[in-house]
């Protein structure tokens, strides 16, 4: 069973790379949805004894992370008619390199963290890597929608981290799913407040001009 979870975690990292490397917003969202589905399968792969709690967690994650939020996001794209991330702060090639470094660093850090042993040694490094990639996307991309995806990725990292500590703090993961509410709020904001009419207004670089 751990082998399956290892494979899932590996795919989670690949989804991170996918997010970092693509320009098309819809593709980015697909990557996030894919990662959500992987996360939904993770608890089931980690805890072979199927309990109501775990199945509920899995199904809940699947619905929220890989169906509801991506659908909303896709709709927001249509509303805002934004197709591509055009002017990232750091180029795509560079952010891919940065992502690779982040993964390497997470593996190096995870070995030194004073954490109790969890079932699979991959959980913590993958969680850290996903967290950092989420941060990279959040900070280096200029479109508000991409940043929402970045936030989603970051939160997926927290979710995986929660899974690694699930035995000690049982409801940490469930709390993590609750964080998704924020994502919903972001998307609502974009859709409802019509930041969508113009292309430029979705660029959060403009927010600095709100000073006075």
């Amino acid at each position: 069973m751990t082998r399956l979870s290892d494979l899932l975690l590996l795919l989670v990292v690949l989804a991170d790379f996918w997010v970092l490397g693509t320009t098309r917003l819809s593709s980015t969202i697909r990557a996030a949805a894919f990662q959500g589905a992987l996360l939904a399968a993770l608890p089931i792969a980690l805890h072979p004894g199927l309990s109501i709690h775990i199945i509920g967690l899995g199904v809940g994650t699947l619905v929220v992370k890989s169906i509801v939020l991506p659908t909303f996001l896709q709709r927001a794209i249509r509303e805002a008619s934004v197709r591509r991330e055009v002017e990232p702060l750091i180029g795509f090639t560079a952010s891919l390199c940065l992502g690779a470094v982040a993964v390497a660093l997470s593996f190096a850090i995870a070995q030194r963290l004073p954490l109790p042993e969890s079932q699979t040694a991959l959980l913590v490094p993958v969680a850290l890597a996903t967290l950092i990639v989420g941060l990279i996307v959040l900070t280096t991309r200029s479109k508000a929608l991409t940043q929402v995806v970045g936030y989603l990725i970051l939160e997926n990292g927290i979710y995986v981290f929660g899974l690694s500590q699930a035995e000690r703090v049982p409801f940490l993961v469930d709390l993590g799913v609750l964080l998704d509410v924020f994502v919903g709020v972001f998307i609502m904001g974009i859709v409802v407040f019509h930041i969508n009419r113009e292309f430029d207004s979705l660029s959060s670089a403009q927010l600095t001009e709100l000073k006075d």
Partner: protein
Amino acid sequence: MTATPFVTLLAVLLAAPALPGIATRAKSLLTGRRGAPMLQLYADLAKLARKGAVYSRTTTLVFRVAPVILTAGVLVAAFLLPLDGRTPIFGFTGDLVAFAGLLALGRFALVLAGLDTGSSFEGMGTSREVTVAAFAEPALLLSLTVLVLVTGSLSLGGMLGAPLATAWPAAAPSLVLAGASLFMLLLAENARVPIDDPATHLELTMIHEVIILDHSGPDLALVLYAGAVKFALFGALVVSVLVPRGRFDPWVAGTMLLAGLALIAALVGVIEAVMARLRMDRIPQFLVTAGALAGLAVILLLR
């Protein structure tokens, strides 16, 4: 030493010109056309070998020697791969460096030949070619590093032979990643979509084709043949990594290789049918992704 290494090598060298044909045929079928015969390249090679050559007055000896060096480098590189799943024709510790070096030597020669014509077309193509190559090289070395870490062997004979077969189950995820990375490199190094389009007819968008615009006759035949063999070598790398053939009988392994090569060529054709080319400035990103996949595999193994 048994005969299988030589026989498989001969078979691969003979079958190589069929691979681009298979790719083109697969693409044609998927896009609703019949396409050229699968064995077209053999006919082309035979015809070119019989034709004379036209040389530009700008060119020097470099232009004439380059196709020879290119072909010799690719052929000697073929000697280093364990094509029958066991033993290469000759291998030694660290021969993976020689493999990469021989391919790079061929590229060096071809690029110089392109610059020798003094044409801006060729200049453009060579400039792009070295750009692609510079980003492909680290990814290739990372992929080979994965194999070194998995098998503990520093020669291609060991990395792709029997030690790989025994180590495969324990390191499957890393090897799959390395295989994927190598497949991406295959596309890049052999000028296939999404890096380059062998079927394009506009010089400004070409990479590989535009370098060899001025080659003709036997020279062009050598370049085309070397390209086909290079395709086969990268295909053999991918097949060997994904399907460890070390525990099969060498004859079976050799046959598996040929079947695998045909499959890969067909897959390349499918990709050409469904994907568009990348913009030139996105090519480094494609190759960095290939490197990142192999890098992830290395990290998993170093853990």
